[in-house]
C-alpha cells in the first residue's frame, strides 16, 4: 500500500510486518522515531505477541536481544552513533554466537565533538564485528531491506545491520509502498533457530574456546558471509517475485555501461549523485554510478565487474579512516587490485555537512581529468583549517579547536565583541 510517510514510520511498519517477538529500545537520535512507533503498536496490541522492552542502555538493548534471540524469538533493536559504540561488546558477541538479530542503524557521526547528524562512521566502525551491513538508498529500500534482512539473518544465523542515513532518510517524508502482511508472510517464514535455549533439549551456548578451535570458529563466520554473497542476490530475486520491485542485492549500477568514470557510494547520497550524473551525461560525460548495498559481506567480485570496464573511479564516502583516508575506498581498491584503474577517494558529508550538487559537479569533473589528490575532502574550509594548523605550530596550547574555528568563521560571541 502506497503512503506518504516518514522513513522511520515506514521502517517501523516493515518491522511490524516481520512479526518480531522481542523489541528492545533505547532512545538515541536519529533512530528514536522507529522504536517509538513500534512501542506504540505493541502497547496498542496491534503487534502481538511481542515484548517491547525499554532498556537502560544500548548495551542492554543488544544484550536483551542476545537473550531473546538465543531463546528463539525474532529479535529487533535500533541504534545509532554513540549508542552503537556503547553496545559494541555485545555487537561482537551477538555475531560470535551466531544470533540472527536485525538492527537498524540510523547512521550518525561519532563524537567528540558530539554531533547528531548523518555520516557513516558509526556502522563502518563495526565492519569487522561479524555483522552483515546493508545500506539503504531510499526509504523504500530501507523498508524492503529489513524484510530481506530477517530472512537472510535467520537462514544463515548471523546478525544484520540495516543502515539508513540518519535524518536524511529516517526523518524524510516520502512515498513508500508498505507491503501487505500476506506478502511478508509468504516471503519470511517463521523463525526456526539453528540453536535455541529450551529445557526440552538443553545446550550450552557461549563456551570458552581456546587456541585449538578459535580460528576455525572465526573462519566459519567468514565462510557464512561468503555464502551470503550468493544468497543476497537470490533473496532479492525472490523478493521481486513477491513484492514486484527490485530492492536489495549486493550492488547496483546506474548508467555504467560505457562509463569511463565511475562514482562509487553507499546510502542516500546516491540519489544526489545520480542527479549529477544525469546532468553530466546530458552534457556528454561518460560517467556512471556504482551503489554498494552490501558493505558486509563486501562483494569484491561484483564491484570489480562493475568498475573494470571504466578508466577511473572515485569513491565518495561519508566516513574517514583518520590517519589513512577512506574506508569504503580501501575496500573498493581491494576489489580492483591489479586492474590498473585510477582510484580516488572523496570524503564528504561528515557530521551532516551538506553535499550539494555543485560540489559534486566540480569533484566529478576533476576526477575525469584526474586532477584530484588521492584523498579529497569535499567542501573542506581550508582557510579555517590552515589558520588553526598555523596557530598550533606557534603555540602548542592554542585553545579549543572548535571555538577557534567558530572564531575564524566569525560565528562566535568573542568574534562579535572581540
Amino acid at each position: 500500500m502506497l503512503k506518504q510517510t516518514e522513513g522511520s514510520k515506514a521502517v517501523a511498519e516493515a518491522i511490524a510486518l516481520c512479526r518480531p517477538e522481542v523489541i528492545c529500545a533505547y532512545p538515541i537520535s536519529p533512530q528514536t522515531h522507529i522504536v517509538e512507533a513500534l512501542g506504540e503498536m505493541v502497547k496498542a496490541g496491534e503487534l502481538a505477541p511481542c515484548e517491547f522492552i525499554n532498556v537502560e542502555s544500548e548495551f542492554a538493548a543488544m544484550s536483551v536481544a542476545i537473550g531473546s534471540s538465543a531463546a528463539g524469538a525474532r529479535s529487533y533493536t535500533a541504534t545509532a552513533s554513540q549508542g552503537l559504540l556503547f553496545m559494541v561488546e555485545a555487537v561482537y558477541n551477538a555475531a560470535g554466537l551466531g544470533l540472527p538479530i536485525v538492527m537498524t542503524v540510523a547512521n550518525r557521526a561519532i563524537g567528540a565533538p558530539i554531533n547528531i547528524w548523518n555520516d557513516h562512521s558509526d556502522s563502518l566502525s563495526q565492519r569487522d564485528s561479524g555483522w552483515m551491513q546493508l545500506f539503504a538508498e531510499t526509504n523504500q529500500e530501507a523498508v524492503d531491506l529489513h524484510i530481506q534482512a530477517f530472512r537472510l539473518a535467520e537462514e544463515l544465523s548471523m546478525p544484520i545491520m540495516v543502515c539508513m542515513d540518519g535524518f536524511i532518510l529516517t526523518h524524510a517524508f516520502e512515498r513508500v509502498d508498505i507491503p501487505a502482511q500476506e506478502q511478508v508472510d509468504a516471503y519470511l517464514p517463521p523463525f526456526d533457530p539453528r540453536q535455541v535455549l529450551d529445557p526440552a533439549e538443553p545446550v550450552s551456548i557461549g563456551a570458552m574456546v581456546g587456541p585449538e578451535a578459535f580460528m576455525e570458529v572465526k573462519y566459519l563466520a567468514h565462510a557464512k558471509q561468503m555464502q551470503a554473497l550468493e544468497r543476497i542476490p537470490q533473496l532479492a530475486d525472490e523478493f521481486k517475485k513477491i513484492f514486484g520491485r527490485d530492492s536489495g542485492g549486493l550492488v547496483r549500477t546506474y548508467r555504467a555501461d560505457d562509463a569511463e568514470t565511475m562514482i562509487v557510494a553507499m546510502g542516500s547520497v546516491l540519489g544526489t549523485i545520480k542527479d549529477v550524473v544525469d546532468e553530466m551525461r546530458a552534457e556528454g560525460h561518460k560517467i556512471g554510478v556504482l551503489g554498494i548495498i552490501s558493505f558486509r559481506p563486501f562483494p569484491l567480485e561484483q564491484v570489480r565487474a562493475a568498475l573494470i570496464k571504466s578508466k577511473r573511479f572515485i569513491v565518495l564516502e561519508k566516513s574517514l579512516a583518520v590517519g589513512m583516508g577512506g574506508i569504503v575506498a580501501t575496500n573498493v581498491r581491494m576489489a580492483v587490485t591489479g586492474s590498473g584503474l585510477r582510484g580516488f577517494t572523496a570524503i564528504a558529508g561528515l557530521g551532516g555537512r551538506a553535499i550539494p550538487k555543485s560540489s559534486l559537479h566540480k569533484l566529478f569533473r576533476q576526477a575525469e581529468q584526474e586532477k584530484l589528490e588521492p584523498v579529497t575532502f569535499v567542501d573542506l574550509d581550508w582557510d579555517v583549517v590552515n589558520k588553526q594548523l598555523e596557530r598550533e605550530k606557534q603555540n602548542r596550547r592554542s585553545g579549543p579547536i572548535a571555538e577557534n574555528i567558530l572564531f575564524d568563521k566569525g560565528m562566535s560571541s568573542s568574534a562579535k565583541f572581540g
Partner: protein
Amino acid sequence: MSFQPVKFYQTGTYTVGNRLLAPDERSVQANQMRGNSINSGHRACQGCGEALGARYAIDAAMVESNGQLIAANATGCLEVFSTPYPESSWQVPWIHSLFGNTAAVATGIAAAMKAKGRHEVRVVAQGGDGGTTDIGFGCLSGMFERNDDVLYICYDNEGYMNTGVQRSSATPPAARTATTMPVGPEPGNVFGQGKNVPEIAMAHGIPYVATATVADLRDLEYKVRKAMRMHGARYIQIFVPCPLGWGTASHDTIRIARLAKESGMFPVFEAEHGEVTSVLKIRNKVAIGEYLKPQKRFAHLFGKHAHPETVARLQAIADRNIRKYGLLEEETD
C-alpha cells in the same frame, strides 16, 4: 526461618539430609536422584565455594520449576570452569554472553518465553560479584527497575578471582588482593563506604531479595525455591568462599562461610518488596578474628606487624550488621 518444617531430628536439622524426614521434606541436595545441574568434571579449584553454591542454587531452581529452567551466566570463574570447549558441565539450557550483561540477557530470554506463551519456563541469571556489583550493575539495576521475571543469583566471592584475585566493589576492607596489596601504612583494601547490593536491590522495591551462604544449605534452598515461586525481579546473593583467592584451606570452604555468618560479617536475611522479613540468627557468635585468621588475605592484620585497630574496625562493621539486622537472639528472661 522455617525452612525445615519439622525440627524433630536432633542430629539432622543442620545437615544436608536426614534419613528420617519424609521425602518431600528433604533437601534437594539429599536426593539420590538429584539433577546435578553442574556435572562432574568441571574445572573449578579444589573446594570451590562457587561450584558448590551454583549447584545448590540451580538444582533447587530446577526442582521448583519442574525442570523448566534456562540459565544465563556472566563471564567469570563459573563460566570458565564449566564450559571450556569441547565440554560443558551444564545440564540445563545455559548461555554465556558477556561479563556485564547477564541480567539483560536473562531479560531477553524471559521476554522471549513470554512472547512465545511459554509461561512455565523460568529464567535464572547468575554471575560473580564482579559481574554483578561492578560491571554488570547497570543491567542488573535495569532488570530490577523493570521488574523483569528473572531470578538473579550473585555468587559472592568478594573479588575478581578468574583474572587473578583483583579487588571488586564486594571486596571487604583490609583484604589483600592483587590490586590492594598488603603494603604501606593502610595495607589491603580501602575502608570505603562499601556497596551493599542486596540493599540496593531492596531499594528497587523488587518482590524478593535474600542473602545466603554455602554453609546453610537448607536456608539457601528455601530461599531459591521461594524466589522461584515468585514472579518479577528477584535477587539472591550467595556467599561462596574462594580457597584460592582468600588463601584458605580447600576443606575450609564451608567453615569459612559459617564463620562469616556467625561473626556478623555477612548478614543472612530475606526481604520482600524492600522490607526485611526475616534474618537467620547467629547461633554461636564468634569474634571477627576467628573469621579473619584462617584467611591469608587478612594475614597482614595479625602476627608480628599486627593491625589490631584494623581488626577493630572490621569488628565494628560486623557489630553494625548485628545491630542493624538483629542477628542475635533476643535475650529472654
